[in-house]
């Protein structure tokens, strides 16, 4: 009927999700310092962590934090909601477990294989999903991931209900033994940090700028002559690959790959981590992953109530706390984090 009434219903996808605090994402001048300090603090924490906390716990946290950051690359900066990211995480996990166990590949090659498989799946799912927008895109990713779940359930190499157990960690480059938790930790921490810096680079690159502009106003970018589908597909593949990196590492950390990692509840968990930490912030998903992973290990005795609590947090985040922990903090400080 008129611009005012329709505008309320047709906010461009993703902008409202990520752009709750516009100043937060449309920075660039002076944004470096807040994030720079935070990243240095993060690196310091990574060095200190294995001396203070059980290394497997920290590695688990890092895998999920990287997974959440990869998901956030797609949602927070691309404005695309996937409910199927477990597919990339889970299949990468299977791949690196299989590569390590059945083919005897070294850890770096197993992880690379998992990452590559995830990227290929990302290309496949992404090229289908971006043919629709908004909630349809979300439903398509969910449906395709569910299809992947059924494949994983039936395909012989995944071990079905049993999963792939007893995955050897091997020796880095065939020489550096990483079978102890403490030695594997440095590999995981290093790859995690590399993943985070890589995403930061992507977000601040010209590609990232165009991506954010598409998120904020897709029709405008189309009319300016940008091939928006290519940008969407590329960020989808990047996000899938980095999710795969996280999943591949997780298989080596736990020496186990299972159906849990490809099921849709895992896609839900990564959304929750990102939401609670702060969509569209660099550090939010890390904080969110820390909150959820810690809560899960402390509350595991509650059994089925954990799922109820997760659902309640989900609802509360959407209704009351859409900026998440880091988003809210960044607002208070007046700078992006």
């Amino acid at each position, binding site marked *: 009927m008129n611009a005012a009434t329709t505008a309320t219903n047709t906010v461009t996808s993703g902008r409202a*999700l990520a752009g709750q605090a516009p100043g937060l994402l449309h920075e660039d001048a002076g944004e470096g310092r807040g994030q720079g300090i935070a990243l240095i603090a993060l690196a310091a924490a990574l060095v200190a962590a294995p001396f203070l906390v059980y290394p497997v716990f920290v590695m688990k946290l890092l895998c999920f934090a990287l997974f959440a950051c990869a998901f956030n690359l797609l949602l927070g900066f691309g404005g695309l909601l996937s409910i199927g990211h477990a597919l990339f995480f889970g299949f990468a996990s299977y791949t690196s477990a299989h590569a390590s166990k059945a083919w005897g590949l070294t850890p770096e090659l197993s992880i690379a294989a998992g990452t590559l498989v995830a990227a290929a799946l990302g290309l496949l799912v992404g090229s289908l999903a971006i043919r629709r927008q908004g909630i349809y895109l979300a*439903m398509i990713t969910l*449906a*395709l991931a569910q299809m992947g779940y059924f494949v994983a359930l039936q395909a012989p190499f995944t071990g079905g209900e049993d999963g792939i157990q007893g995955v050897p960690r091997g020796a880095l480059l065939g020489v550096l033994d990483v079978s102890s938790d403490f030695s594997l930790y440095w590999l995981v921490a290093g790859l995690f940090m590399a993943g985070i810096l890589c995403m930061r680079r992507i977000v601040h690159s010209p590609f990232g700028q165009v991506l954010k502009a598409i998120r904020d106003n897709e029709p405008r970018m189309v009319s300016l002559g940008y091939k928006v589908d290519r940008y969407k597909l590329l960020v989808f593949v990047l996000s899938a690959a980095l999710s795969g990196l996280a999943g591949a590492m997780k298989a080596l950390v736990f020496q186990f790959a299972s159906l849990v990692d490809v099921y849709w509840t895992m896609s839900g968990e990564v959304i929750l981590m990102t939401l609670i930490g702060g969509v569209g912030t660099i550090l939010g998903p890390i904080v969110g992953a820390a909150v959820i992973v810690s809560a899960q290990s402390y509350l595991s005795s509650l059994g*089925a109530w954990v*799922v109820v609590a997760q*659902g309640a947090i*989900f609802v509360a985040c959407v*209704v009351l706390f859409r900026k998440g922990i880091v988003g809210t903090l960044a607002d208070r400080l007046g700078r992006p984090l």
Partner: protein
Amino acid sequence: MATVFGIPLAVLFGQVLIGLINGAFYAILSLGLAVIFGLLNIINFAHGALYMAGAFTAWILLNHAGIGFWGALVLAPLIVGLAGVVIERLLLSRIYRLDHLYGLLLTFGLALMITGLFRVGFGSSGLPYPAPAELSGGTNLGFMFLPNYRGFVVAASILVCLGTWFVIERTRIGAYLRAATEDPDLVQTFGINVPLLITLTYAAGVALAAFAGVLAAPIYSVNPGMGQDLIIVVFAVVVIGSMGSIAGAVVTGFALGVVEGLAKVAWPEASSTVIFVIMAVVLLLKPQGLFGKVS
């Protein structure tokens, strides 16, 4: 015994019937999703959980109040519909001005909560629910044996879909609904209570899901997970058919149920994925969905 491609006809018809029953659930659920989406712009992820809640309500009514199937078929949708009123007023109404994706996230959380609560209360294993005595046994149709209850499920689903179509397309309240789907603000300037209409629409949509849940209770065991995997398939159905048309949603639902049933005969391992494959093919050939309009 007659065969087609080496498959006995009776087996084939049996699978078509199972397909029709699954298709009936796809149709009712995607119909509810489409009606809710049309007015609320929300994809109700909790739809599967509320379908499950409908089945559990029937089970609880039977085991704790002695109310049987026919009573449950009326009461369970009403009770779940009331829960829908609470959900809409308390939660959904706060996010209408936000991006549609928030609706998906909110109802995703709701689905986890509802499913989790039933798991806490009833455990994860299935609970049996008997088919009504009036519909026990079966009828020999000559070419196949039709269990009476299954025949009833298909007939009742078709009736409910037709009834929903009639209310939306042929009644005054349906005209309000269609108009509000196009331009809620303008409808409000005629003095029509659009927020109430939204609440009732959500309640009616989830009541449909609960109705399907009651129908499903005697066929599948009643368990907290019964709605989760189903709703994902229904999402694929909705992507294939698009949510623009009531008839489209219903026809797509039934048709895909039958295709899935036939796939079970031809290649059993693929039957759980065939709808997703069809979705992928439709996305390649006709990205807007079979009944979707090019925007």
